[in-house]
């Protein structure tokens, strides 16, 4: 078994038995569920809205090369610079080169899964550049030295008491602050950081081809402030975040807000289409957009898995997943956790090291049910399993066992040849491990149906 797989099993087993963890998660997801129910009321016809969203993303990927060129052309016209990065290392090198050119020591960053994907913070820290997370949830996680637990709600696994304790320990605040007071503490601390930083880094929820714009949605205002004072704004974004037209936002903003947090629309929905223009008094002097592939064209190549690129990272499938709720976001050991993480990570980071995630599902299909862009998530998990077998990523022993199983069960003669006990022995020998410690192996009847039938008719 791959080392990632065994550590995944170990961590999952531990978390699944952690009742405190389950309580916090159920509490938070319960609140989310109530909010989403209310948020969905804003759609007169939700099914059509989701179907349309899926069509738009489909169209975006159909013409992805042209849209990317159009985006580049439009952004460049207004003074923005576009950089292409084939993989994580190239993205990191480009960012470092910009930092060096600007003699940057301090960066403010708003929430971005793409920067998590390339492990930007630890890379910059190695080069003595401080990169501060400004989204409250991410700020909490950074204080605690942990990666985000969830793609939308990074500190979902912490209770308010946990956060108060953390602030007390790291920032010296009184240990019993309320969420209001804690937010205020972060607000004050971070306001200074916005003013001091030389560079602001954000992700993008969408990139828009027809206007050459970068669309960012947020509730807190930190992404806006992160890009207000620093002289340089860097955007790191995956190429699949493309929308053909600004008009598509009319559907995607409300959809993302509702499925992400249950809101009708998020508080700030900004569009950046270039650095400060002539005659404007503020805003960054330079804007770079790094378009990152990092495995995405692999997914595009796979005609089945392709639709996983429609994902708008709303987190809805995580919240709906019985596996996620029991083992928690950190057990996956990946940037993207939950059902969609299990679908894309084997493609992004290698089948061999991450295929085990495709089995971390009961295939109940709830993820597919709640996905705003109607990705067939559970079928894609099954597809990954297929692919793993076809491309020989499963163990030789497992293949042998199934081969034996197939031969035996296709042959009436062989089935009748041996007794139930022998069959049980066979099961134990070859399938007990795959079946799992906590499930009982099925038991064979001592005589086969065929034998019983014959005996009766005598």
């Amino acid at each position, binding site marked *: 078994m791959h080392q990632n797989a065994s550590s995944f099993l170990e961590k999952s087993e531990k978390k699944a038995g952690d009742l405190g963890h389950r309580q916090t998660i159920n509490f938070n997801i319960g609140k989310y569920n109530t909010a989403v129910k209310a948020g969905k009321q804003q759609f007169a016809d939700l099914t059509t809205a989701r179907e349309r969203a899926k069509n738009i993303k489909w169209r975006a990927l159909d013409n992805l090369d042209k849209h990317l060129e159009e985006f580049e052309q439009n952004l460049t016209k207004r003074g923005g610079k576009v950089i292409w990065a084939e993989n994580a290392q190239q993205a990191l090198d480009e960012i470092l080169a910009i930092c060096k050119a600007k003699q940057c020591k301090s960066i403010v960053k708003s929430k971005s899964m793409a920067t998590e994907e390339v492990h930007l913070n630890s890379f910059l820290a190695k080069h003595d550049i401080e990169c501060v997370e400004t989204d409250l949830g991410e700020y909490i996680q950074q204080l605690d030295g942990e990666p985000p637990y969830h793609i939308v709600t990074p500190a979902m696994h912490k209770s308010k008491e946990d956060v108060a304790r953390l602030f007390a320990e790291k920032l010296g605040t009184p240990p019993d602050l309320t969420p209001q007071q804690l937010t205020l503490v972060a607000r004050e601390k*971070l306001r200074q950081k916005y003013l001091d930083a030389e560079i602001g880094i954000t992700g993008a929820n969408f990139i828009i081809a027809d206007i050459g714009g970068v669309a960012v949605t947020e509730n807190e205002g930190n992404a806006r402030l992160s890009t207000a004072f620093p002289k340089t704004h860097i955007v790191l974004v995956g190429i699949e975040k493309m929308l053909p037209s600004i008009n598509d936002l*009319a559907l995607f903003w409300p959809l993302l807000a509702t499925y992400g947090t249950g809101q*009708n*629309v998020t*508080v700030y929905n900004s569009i950046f289409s270039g650095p400060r223009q002539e005659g404007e008094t503020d*805003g960054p002097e330079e804007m770079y957009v790094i378009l990152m592939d990092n495995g995405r064209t692999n997914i595009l190549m796979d005609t089945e898995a392709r639709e996983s690129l429609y994902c708008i990272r709303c987190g809805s499938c995580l919240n709906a997943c019985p596996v996620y709720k029991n083992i928690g976001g950190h057990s996956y050991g990946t940037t993207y956790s939950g059902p969609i993480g299990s679908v894309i990570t084997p493609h992004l980071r290698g089948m061999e090291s991450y295929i085990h995630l495709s089995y971390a599902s009961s295939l109940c299909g709830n993820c597919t049910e709640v996905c705003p862009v109607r990705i067939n998530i559970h079928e894609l998990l099954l597809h990954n399993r297929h692919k793993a077998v076809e491309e020989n990523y499963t163990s030789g022993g497992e293949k042998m066992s199934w081969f034996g199983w197939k031969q035996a069960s296709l042959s009436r003669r062989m089935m009748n040849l041996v007794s139930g006990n022998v069959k049980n022995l066979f099961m134990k020998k070859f399938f007990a491990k795959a079946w799992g410690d906590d499930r009982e192996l099925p038991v064979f009847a001592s005589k086969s149906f065929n034998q019983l039938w014959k005996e009766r008719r005598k």
Partner: protein
Amino acid sequence: MSSREQILAAIKRNQPEQQELPVLDSFRHTEAGDPAAFRKVVETLGGQVYEITSYTEIQPLVAEHYTDVTRVVSIRPEYFPGAITGWQEGDGRQLEQVDLAIIPGQLGVAENGAIWITEQEIEVRVLPFITQHLAIVLPRTEILPTMHDAYARIWSPSAGFGVFIAGPSKTADIEQSLVLGAHGAKSLTVFLIG
């Protein structure tokens, strides 16, 4: 080959066949948006709405409803006579001490309470975010039913920055409990004029 060409070539190689897809015009409306509906949504977002008929009503309303406001920036002098002048000078940091900013909005969306603002009206991009409190003056006639109607109208290619603002800044990152005033404005007031 450069990275750009590598990536574009990989996409060309792998992307699906072209397909015709339907147009999405059916969400568009021709009638105006309902100010009462707009008001209701803004209030649920944690904002306040005052309906006024003349700009002169703004100043007394501010005096009545804000207790902690002394430094006021107003985009148009007629909104708030005696507001700070010369606030545009500087790189934006000078605005850190502003208590209340009063700015015009281009249009509002009745279905979700979002108000569209661009760089052209606000002059300084950071103003609506750095101020402690935000007030937006919006003509009643500029309310549209849905986000689709709004997008059919908004984009002026000369603006480098535009934003939809819906309510005051907030977060629910700690145990999903809602806190108003995360990093941006702590409160939002809308003056509907006309």
